[in-house]
């Protein structure tokens, strides 16, 4: 238990609209250990980012945590007053965003923005913080950091800005880094560089990473364990290797079959990309039973009757399906 940096138990997030409460995320369970890279995968709107915001205590009305526990290094976050929560953010839990273009304050030099972290969380003087900021920029492999520190965000390229974001996020050696689609907005060539950089720095500092993405390839490459979300629930959670070689949940299988693969077309001839039929149900009318049932080829009456619980798989990992492979 001491190993777990983050332990999320039965987390539920709901959207309250007057008296009506609509569950947006339900029954999310996972743990992330020290130094581990954990992937959270799912399509847009499945609740990935809501989970991330909940972890940072940043859910805004009408969204709110409506059940379950979030334990950070064994400490329950729910009862913490806002002031305590603020002290944890940036210090113990940090986040990088998908849009490096807008994630930096356009009117402050990057040095000031990195330095602020040390002033706020470490109580350093601005002068000392500046030196630490240069060091931090050096760590994210920005060349001539003592000059770049005076640059404004608009003077930097997208990849450079993402490096600055990483420097800010890792400034205080957090226990957990949440990377919310960190590479979506970047060029493919820079994506790999940035991910490598994040992982390398986190490995060195022992920081656990929660990688939120809809990029299965990225997740397969870098994560130790992966959880797949669908319509607000985790449907499968396994080691990265297994989930890609032998997906158990029909949805996961659908996702992996839908991946275009280079060279396949030549091999198999003219064939359409596989897709998952149907659309994700709207948040207000999630099916009563398995949420994937309406789109599932294996669904039976049993699936539609009642909510399906997570079950352990023989080969390790868990899946939310009655007819898993």
């Amino acid at each position, binding site marked *: 238990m001491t190993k777990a940096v983050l332990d999320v138990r039965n987390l539920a997030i709901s959207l309250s609209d007057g008296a009506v409460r609509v569950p947006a995320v339900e029954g999310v369970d996972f743990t992330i250990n020290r130094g581990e890279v954990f992937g959270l995968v799912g399509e847009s709107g499945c609740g990935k980012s809501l989970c991330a915001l909940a972890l940072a205590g940043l859910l805004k009305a009408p969204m709110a945590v409506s059940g379950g526990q979030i334990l950070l290094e064994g400490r329950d976050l729910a009862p913490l007053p806002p002031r305590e929560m603020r002290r944890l*953010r*940036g210090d113990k839990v940090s986040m990088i965003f998908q849009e490096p273009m807008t*994630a*930096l304050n356009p009117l402050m030099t990057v040095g000031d923005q990195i330095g602020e972290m040390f002033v*706020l969380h470490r109580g350093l003087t601005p002068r000392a913080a500046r030196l630490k900021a240069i060091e931090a920029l050096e760590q994210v492999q920005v060349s001539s950091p003592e000059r770049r520190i005076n640059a404004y965000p608009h003077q930097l390229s997208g990849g450079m800005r993402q490096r600055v974001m990483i420097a800010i996020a890792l400034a205080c050696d957090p226990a957990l880094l949440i990377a919310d689609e960190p590479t979506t907005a970047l060029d493919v060539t820079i994506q790999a560089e940035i991910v490598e950089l994040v992982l390398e720095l986190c490995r060195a500092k022992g920081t656990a990473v929660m990688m939120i993405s809809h990029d299965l390839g990225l997740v397969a490459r870098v994560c130790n364990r992966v959880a797949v979300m669908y319509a607000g629930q985790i449907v499968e959670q396994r080691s990265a290797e297994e989930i890609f070689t032998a997906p158990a949940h029909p949805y996961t299988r659908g996702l992996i079959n839908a991946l275009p693969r280079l060279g396949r077309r030549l091999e198999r001839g003219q064939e359409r990309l596989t897709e998952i039929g149907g659309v994700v149900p709207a948040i207000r009318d999630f099916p009563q039973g398995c949420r994937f049932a309406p789109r599932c080829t294996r669904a039976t009456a049993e699936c539609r009757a009642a909510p399906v619980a997570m079950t352990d798989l023989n080969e390790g990992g868990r899946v939310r399906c009655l007819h898993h492979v």
Partner: protein
Amino acid sequence: MKAGANLYVGGGIILLIFLLAVFAPLIAPYDPVTSANLMYAEEPPGAQFWLGTDEQGRDIFSRIAYGARISLFIGLAVQVMNTAIGVSLGLSAGYIGGWWDEIVQGLTNLMLSIPTIVFALALMAILGPGLPSLLIALGMTDWAYSCRISRAQVLTQKSLNYVQSARTMGFGPLHVMFRELLPNISGPLIVVATMGVGSAIMAEASLSFLGLGVVPPNPSWGGMLSSAREQLMVAPWVAVFPGLALFAAVLGFNLLGDGLRDLLDPHGKGRK
């Protein structure tokens, strides 16, 4: 008009008035108050009295120069107060939202529904004439526009990632509002505040004209206009020159505001 012309013309006018106010004791040929001499009452403009004299024989140019001090001081001080109130309310309403936003919005609508000058008149009636009450009456009644604009700007900015990111890194609401948001919304606010100085000067003149502002015999442009209206037919210069000064000051601040907007707003026509 050429881009930037507004800025220079407006800025030039303001600079001239500012210099006039600062160096009034050096520039003005006569004392604005004690030089009263009925022998020279209502002299037309000429070599001895550049802009003529009023009904008490006081030099109008000297009185305008000293009046500029009051007008500028009140205009700027009042606008600083209004902007501080408006921005604090608008910024917090936009950022915090919820019930606080409702209250501030209600208050803003209330202020907008009552003409500023009427509100200020009522306050002056309670507080009595004089400089301090003038500052209070004008400085607390005209913040609705800066409040609205800062609220609207905050609403567009607060969903941007840098605000979210600052929150994620553990910064508190005060830091986010004043260090992150305020600098990023200051462009339009500077424009509004600059133009507001003109209307504050106008409001001061109106109150002084009605006898509720600066107490005579201290020179103020509004007060000069007020006492000039009885001689309008015989000595029009007594009214015309303070009126022109007022006109120039308001025009100057409006042009400066326009020029600043062209300069600060990257989407405006000024950058084409």
